[in-house]
């Protein structure tokens, strides 16, 4: 008797704390798609991962009926196109372009700056702190007074950014600033995201993320 996951034929290769993997988990949950989750050990990558993503050898990888899709935003768009219920991207081409721009902005800016924030010291750290505040303020500017980046709908940009809300505590602590103080609307949006079951079930507690970063810091000899 095939399980619901087996019927859909969807497998997600992932790593528990990865915000990129979490985007895929959230998108699948928003569409109500059952899937098989496979946790990867990134220091000992499985033959399946290396076969399905030979170029980058990274997670997340979505495997649908045996065919792999790589790169988290490519995966999320694929999910949106295959399962047309609860659309994540709006229907108007200009609004879609705006959503793609902001998701690309999150990709280019948030993770890279976050890494600089916990990894670097001195002047470079101070620069990372300034950059992160600017990045979050720009995002808040785009959000404005909307419920979500997608307006009333939890959309593509929300999916792209929501996993990083679990990293806010780490950014604040490493950067010694308060995200709530600098970006109150973004903070309120983060709370609304956490209230969605699709997000709360996909994303880990901020303290767990902070603990994980602590281990990375030790590994890289940063104190």
């Amino acid at each position, binding site marked *: 008797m095939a399980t619901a996951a087996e019927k859909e034929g969807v497998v997600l290769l992932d790593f528990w704390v990865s915000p990129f993997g979490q985007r895929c988990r959230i998108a699948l949950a928003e569409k109500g798609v059952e899937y098989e989750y496979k946790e990867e050990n990134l220091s000992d990558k499985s033959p399946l991962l290396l076969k399905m993503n030979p*170029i980058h050898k990274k997670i997340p990888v979505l495997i*649908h009926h045996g*065919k792999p*899709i*790589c*790169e988290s935003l*490519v*995966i999320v*768009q*694929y999910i949106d*196109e*295959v399962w047309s219920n609860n659309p994540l991207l709006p229907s108007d*081409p*200009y609004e*879609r*372009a705006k959503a*793609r*721009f902001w998701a*690309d*902005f999150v990709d280019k800016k948030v993770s890279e700056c976050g890494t600089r924030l916990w990894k670097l010291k001195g002047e470079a750290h101070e620069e990372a702190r300034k950059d992160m505040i600017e990045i979050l303020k*720009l995002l808040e500017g785009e959000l404005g007074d909307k419920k979500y980046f997608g307006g009333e709908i939890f959309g593509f940009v929300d999916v792209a950014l929501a996993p990083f809300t679990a990293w806010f505590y780490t950014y604040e602590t490493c950067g010694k600033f308060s995200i709530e103080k600098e970006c109150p609307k973004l903070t309120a949006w983060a709370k609304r995201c956490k209230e969605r079951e699709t997000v709360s079930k996909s994303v880990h507690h901020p303290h767990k993320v902070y603990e994980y970063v602590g281990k990375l810091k030790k590994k890289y000899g940063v104190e």
Partner: protein
Amino acid sequence: MGEELKLFGVWGSPFSRRVELALRLKGIPYDYMEEDLSNKSPSLLKYNPIHKKIPVLLHGGKPVVESLVILEYIEETWEGNHAILPKDPYERAMARFWARFLDDKCMPAMWMSCWTEGDAQQNFMKESKENLSILEGELKGKKFFGGNAIGLVDIAALFIAHWAGVLQEVAGISLVNEEKHPILFKWIEEFISSDIVVECLPARERLLAFFQAKKETMLATKAPAQ
């Protein structure tokens, strides 16, 4: 459609030329505004305040930025004429993956191969050659990355078809060569044999002179004081 269409670009940029190619393939008329990146226009800063970069496509007064985002916008707005993305979601995902591979991996490594020296250059060249072999694998058996017609990935790979050759000459290195990358070489020949593509390429001599001047400036600033 009747609405005003303007493209802010730079003559030598593969990113703004990509957008021009997509518009021309679809037969869409547009106005072109050349930007001076050392003196950015108030319009550019108004329409792309976050990145302050070209290309910017202005359609009916509304700006679209980031070249790959612009290409998808063009595809969705002017459906029907010369589709640049396939209809099948899996094939679309593959096209998007390869376009990102070109932008995130291929182009930066090739660019850096031409502007660095010593060990750093060797590493970038090794990475570039691996990327080119990967691209060859994707092209096998196809006329274009998009199949029988030019698609999103071909448009994104415009840099390899034209700029790479010029930069290699300026740097005195070999990255794309016929012997090691016969399939890619054939693709380049096929691609630039199209009149529409040729119209979108900056004159080779002008590009060569531009990069040679840039190299001379670089070497001059490195030269020890006499």
